[in-house]
């Protein structure tokens, strides 16, 4: 029997799975490409939810990892290396190292200082990318094409790329679900509720929090790799602090500390942005108040509302 709480994630993934089969989007792959973008940002939001939702660590520099993943593709491509088997490990390793270095420093602070220092590191990454004159500097750079997989150009079509992103999203989601319910994840969740209690029974939290920070950064690096491939373009704009803020909004909109929520939040954010911008170029004027209303009245974001509707609210 399927547990009631599994219905939502299964529905989400089923929807993503059947969408490309519903119709032949043909050359006008507009919808397909929007949903691909949703799934890429869902990966980024799920990774942020690990530290923001489960760890209660408000990182305001998460977009840096999107940028690092993207630049791994861009810089390697510029040198003629379009092989994903090289690009993906490079994106993940550089993201992990950046997370290890910045996390080791940031996690020595708490609260507002943690927010500020992660923001500062995010901005450092941004200005570093701007200064990369050889790789487009401020303007960014266009890629020669999508990455190759073992020499084969198999994700050139929007549909094939869609399924690649879909597979990545499932893998990231399943991995994160395992992590948050594991021994390690339980320590992270415990530290969110009462860090002093956790230390008093013998957990040195710094090591755990640094680990989750590195995991989150690495997974977001994967989203960066995919983002560069989708747009076939890399620019410092991927790592602006506004983008970090958008990722936080996605997680909040979906509901903190529920990986399903991060996916829903990313979808709601991007689809609303897309939908509203068709009606008016001042779409942010409507989007802002909407967010305020969600935060004020839908406690726990979309997931909070969903749980109240289905009666699966366990108070977490």
């Amino acid at each position, binding site marked *: 029997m399927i547990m009631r709480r599994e219905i939502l994630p299964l529905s989400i993934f089923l929807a993503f799975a059947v969408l490309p089969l519903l119709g032949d989007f043909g050359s006008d792959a507009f919808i397909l490409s929007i949903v691909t973008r949703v799934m890429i940002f869902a990966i980024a939001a799920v990774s942020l939810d690990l530290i923001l939702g489960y760890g209660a660590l408000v990182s305001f520099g998460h977009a840096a990892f999107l940028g690092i993943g993207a630049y791994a593709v861009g810089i390697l491509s510029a040198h003629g290396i379009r092989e994903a088997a090289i690009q993906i490990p490079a994106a993940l390793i550089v993201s992990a190292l950046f997370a290890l270095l910045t996390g080791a420093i940031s996690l020595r602070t708490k609260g507002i200082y943690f927010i500020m220092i992660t923001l500062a590191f995010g901005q450092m990454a941004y200005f570093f990318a701007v200064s990369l004159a050889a790789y487009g500097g401020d303007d960014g750079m266009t890629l020669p094409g999508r990455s190759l997989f073992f020499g084969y150009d198999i994700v050139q079509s929007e549909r094939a790329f869609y399924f690649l992103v879909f597979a990545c999203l499932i893998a990231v989601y399943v991995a994160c679900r395992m*992590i948050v319910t594991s*021994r390690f994840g339980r320590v992270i*969740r415990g530290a969110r*509720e*009462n860090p002093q209690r956790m*230390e008093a029974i*013998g957990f040195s939290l710094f090591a755990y929090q640094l680990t989750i920070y590195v995991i989150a950064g690495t997974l977001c690096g994967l989203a960066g790799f995919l983002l560069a491939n989708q747009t076939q373009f890399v620019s410092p704009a991927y790592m602006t602090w506004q983008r970090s803020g958008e990722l936080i909004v996605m997680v909040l909109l979906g509901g903190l500390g529920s990986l399903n929520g991060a996916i829903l939040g990313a979808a709601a954010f991007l689809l609303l942005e897309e939908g509203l911008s068709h009606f008016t170029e001042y779409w942010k004027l409507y989007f802002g108040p909407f967010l305020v209303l969600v935060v004020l009245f839908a406690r726990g974001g979309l997931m909070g509302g969903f749980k109240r509707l289905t009666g699966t609210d366990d108070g977490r």
Partner: protein
Amino acid sequence: MTIPMLELRHIRKNFGALNVTDDVSLTIPRHELHAMIGPNGAGKTTLIHQISGLLSSNSGTLLLNGEDITALDLPQRARKGIVRSFQITSILPHFSTLENVALAVQARSGSSFRFFGRADREAVLNDAALAALTEVGLRDRANLRAGLLSHGEKRQLELAIALAAQPSVLLLDEPLAGTGPEESAVLTDLLRRLKGRLTIVLIEHDMEAVFSLADRISVLVYGKIIATDTPQAIRDNPEVRTAYLGEETA
């Protein structure tokens, strides 16, 4: 000569010009229940903070079973076996009662850098946690969210958490605080059963409980220990009577 379980040598703590802990030396043998009494503001809780590692000392040495642990922080000391409760109940309110305790078991049982396998289904952890809950009389509350427990039950839970962490030294900061007469009786019984199995340092304002439980009592006044002796001798000590007990009996 046997090595004492816990030894404090010239421990000091000052906040600015205020000496909260003023050159405290104390030797506590294995399996003693040592009570710490003194008027409000005497520095009892500060001393517990210093022994547990929550606060660092300005000077002095702390030995656990002969080993110098002065440089260790709170979690490191907990792993060495110094486990504490808090004056203000400190639990994980959104975790189940069982998981609160299972986490303490987890802290002492293998690595917690395990990323796969559901922690809440690990029989090793849950069995030990259930045993600790049974010990404090909370077994039938195991699956309840800890935040929903009554105040007295939360204090019982805190004791279960501390016990599950397998302490060699248990520091209890007013475990009876805020409990009603019935809850207080349950907790006192529990402490009596623990007595003799662990080394316990107990801060408590309930004098009846203190004098019936303690092997020895230290009286702390303005950060100084003015007397350490058996309950009977403390009761008869004229200096203690004027400094502390006198205020209550007069």
